[in-house]
């Protein structure tokens, strides 16, 4: 059966690709950040590809349902999936039929830094005070995250290691609820990535106590990164496109080129800016390397967490 599928996929000639619309499987519900970004990118890429780009949501199982389906799709370039950080996390947490190795990298589009937010009226004025308190009171600072084993939870775990402190991690059903809990004073801090909580930072209700990026935010030039303050740590979440394993390289190249043009399109650039996402282009090779190294990193972190 599999051989047959593979054979059926073979006669694809890059010269006439694409002859029909290309679909992107989003393993998350409609309306989330991933969904919105790829719907916007699909809208601008269509004209460069010559055929429409259709987004199909296959939510469920923290992404497992959609990735399993994308993995089984014929590798002919007509079915892609959004490859985002959880793809390299989930296989360490539960038994999945796939890892990142079952896909070909096409392009990375977004990379958002992780960060910790606290209330503006919190007792900690600086990262140093925050970490000193955490050191003296291990397990006492409650840090909300968007879901156990999710991207920002693992970022928080990794930061904990880098800063050699211990937090009390509280999972919520998404980034929104965790920020709400922080606003209501039910947790001391939250681990998020933009645009979550950004508006409350602008309004002065919350502040960024730790920023895990290499560079400062354009929006908040006064907020230093943790690297500048002596903790050698930077980690974020990426969102790119992947194709089922075995998709011919020339088809991948065609897709990559079209999506790259879609990314550079002023309409998409404006959409991305409005959504406060950090565009970060990587070609297939670099994106593949990123997934490999993250897979390894999260494997280690989860092993430690389960100890």
């Amino acid at each position, binding site marked *: 059966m599999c051989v047959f599928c593979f054979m059926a996929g073979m006669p694809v000639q890059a010269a006439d690709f694409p002859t029909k619309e290309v679909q992107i499987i989003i393993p998350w*519900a*409609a*309306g*989330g*950040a991933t*969904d*919105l970004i790829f*719907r*916007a990118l699909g*809208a601008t890429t269509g004209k460069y590809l010559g055929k429409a780009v259709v987004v*199909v*949501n*296959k*939510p*469920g*199982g*923290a992404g*497992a*349902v959609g990735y*399993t389906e994308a993995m089984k799709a014929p590798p002919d370039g007509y079915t892609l999936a959004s490859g985002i950080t959880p793809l390299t996390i989930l296989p360490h*947490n*539960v*038994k*999945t*039929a796939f890892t990142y190795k079952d896909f070909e990298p096409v392009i990375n589009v977004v990379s958002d830094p992780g960060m910790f937010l606290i209330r503006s009226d919190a007792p900690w004025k600086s990262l140093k005070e925050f970490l000193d308190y955490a050191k003296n009171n291990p*397990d006492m600072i*409650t840090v909300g995250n968007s*879901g*156990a*084993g*999710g991207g920002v939870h693992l970022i928080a775990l990794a930061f904990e290691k880098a800063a050699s402190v211990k937090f*009390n*991690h*509280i*999972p*919520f*059903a*998404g980034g*929104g*609820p965790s*920020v*709400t*809990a922080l*606003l*209501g*004073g*039910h*947790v001391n801090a939250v681990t998020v990535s933009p*645009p979550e909580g*950004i*508006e*409350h930072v*602008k*309004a002065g*209700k919350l502040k960024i106590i730790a920023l895990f990026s290499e560079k400062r935010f354009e929006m908040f030039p006064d907020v230093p990164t943790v690297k500048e303050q002596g903790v050698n740590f930077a980690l974020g979440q990426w969102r790119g496109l992947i194709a089922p394993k075995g998709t011919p390289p020339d088809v991948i190249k065609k897709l990559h080129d079209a999506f790259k043009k879609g990314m550079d399109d002023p309409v998409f650039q*404006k*959409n991305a800016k*409005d*959504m*406060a996402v950090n565009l970060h282009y990587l070609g297939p090779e670099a994106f593949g390397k990123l997934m490999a190294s993250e897979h390894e990193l999260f494997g280690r972190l989860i092993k430690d967490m389960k100890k």
Partner: protein
Amino acid sequence: MFESLQHLIAGFGIALTIHNLFYCLIGAIIGTLIGVLPGLGPIAGIALLIPATYNLNAVSAIIMLAGIYYGAMYGGSTTSILLNVPGETASVITCIDGYQMAQKGRAGPALATCAIGSFIAGTIAILGLVFLAPPLAEAALSFGPAEYFSLMVFGFIVLCNVTGTSLVKSLMMAVVGLIIGTIGLDPVSGVARFTFDSMDLLSGIEFVAVAIGLFGIGEVLANVEKPLESLEGKVLVPRLRELYPTLEDLKKSIKPILRGTAVGFGVGLVPGPAPVIATYSSYMIERNVSKHPEEFGKGAIEGVAGPEAANNSACQAAFIPLFVLGIPFAPPTAILLGALLIHGVSPGPMLIGDHPQLFWGVIASMYIGNFILLLLNLPFVPLFANILRIPKKVLLPLVILFCVTGMYTVNNSVVDIWMMLLFGAIGYLLRKLDYEAAPLLLALVLGPKLEVAFRQSLMISHGDFRVFLDRPISMGFLLATLLFLLIPVFRIIVKSTGKGGGFRRSVGGEKV
């Protein structure tokens, strides 16, 4: 308050331009259609239409998308009443008395009452939105995991026997619902539970599959075993004057609608499964204040009017946290948040100040939208009611087809369809054995949230159970729950001392 009125008038100026009226109308029409189709709910509807708004300005786009959301709430009860198929969580309760009304030839009044109830509730709730939004939003923030847990406990105990039949059987069904709710990824530790390594079970059992299966498919199966003559004959031929509610119907409905509006508005401010708690609570209240509680479950119009109003008012209240805090408390408002971002509006504490034309324009458009929906829905009543003229042997296979396609649109998943059919078979058995599906569905929705809130609270308190008692709101809910459980005991005491009159129809009027 005066300032709010001035802003509102300016908002009407924005909403009443031809351009925005047009998008409000489009949103209302699409919303109604989406609401009528089971499965395809407001979430999928809004998400699918976001790309269509790329070229609109933010105000028109949000006016249209918000119209889809509350429009879907209007239409949601149609299939519940006609076919016993609840399209979403909010319309489960409407199945109970709405479907019974339709079976008695009163589909028209049931549908019309829904539309009128939704209109009144929507209009009153928007007033609340205008004048009370900021303080209420701040109050909603005081709900942390501990408060949330206690609220869930209260809801669970009080609402579990919503239909007022056997308490033991209701509790049994609730436990089954709790068990089904544990399937999937554990939300706190991320461990897979009861999935047997199946990818399809990782996300748990889809609520809509259980709801449509137990109600819709179960009902079809129960009909199939009836004698052939009853399936071939025309069931009901409603006459024109029976299509709309009588004056007496309206008199009976008005108080339930007002009570439902109040309950829905309060519950809608709390994050989480507001539509379920709002509709169940309203039904519970109506059954308990009614002078003829025995009619409930057999086609009482109050059991349709109250919950439908509650549902709509909860839906409008959900806009408060979205607009004031920039935080969506429910999935449909989360999608709207995404739409705001796409249009360069970042919802947050500064939205009303930064984009007054958007906030007040959208609010004003809601008034207009509610009115459009009433005008749109009432003429449809005869059309929908006439569906029941179709002989059952033709109608029932169509219902199955309708359910299967509707189910697929929820997650684009074939597994969900099988799950729905499986629960259809279970629903048939439950019907035969006289078990109610409503408590199971309540537990399926509340159970996972209850568990998460419980574990979050204890993680925050390092395992100290006093966290539930130290906080006043949480303590209040727990005391109320205790009081409710003790009512039957009080009643026994009162009865045994020979003064049994006063407690006869108190809140806990169940036959235990």
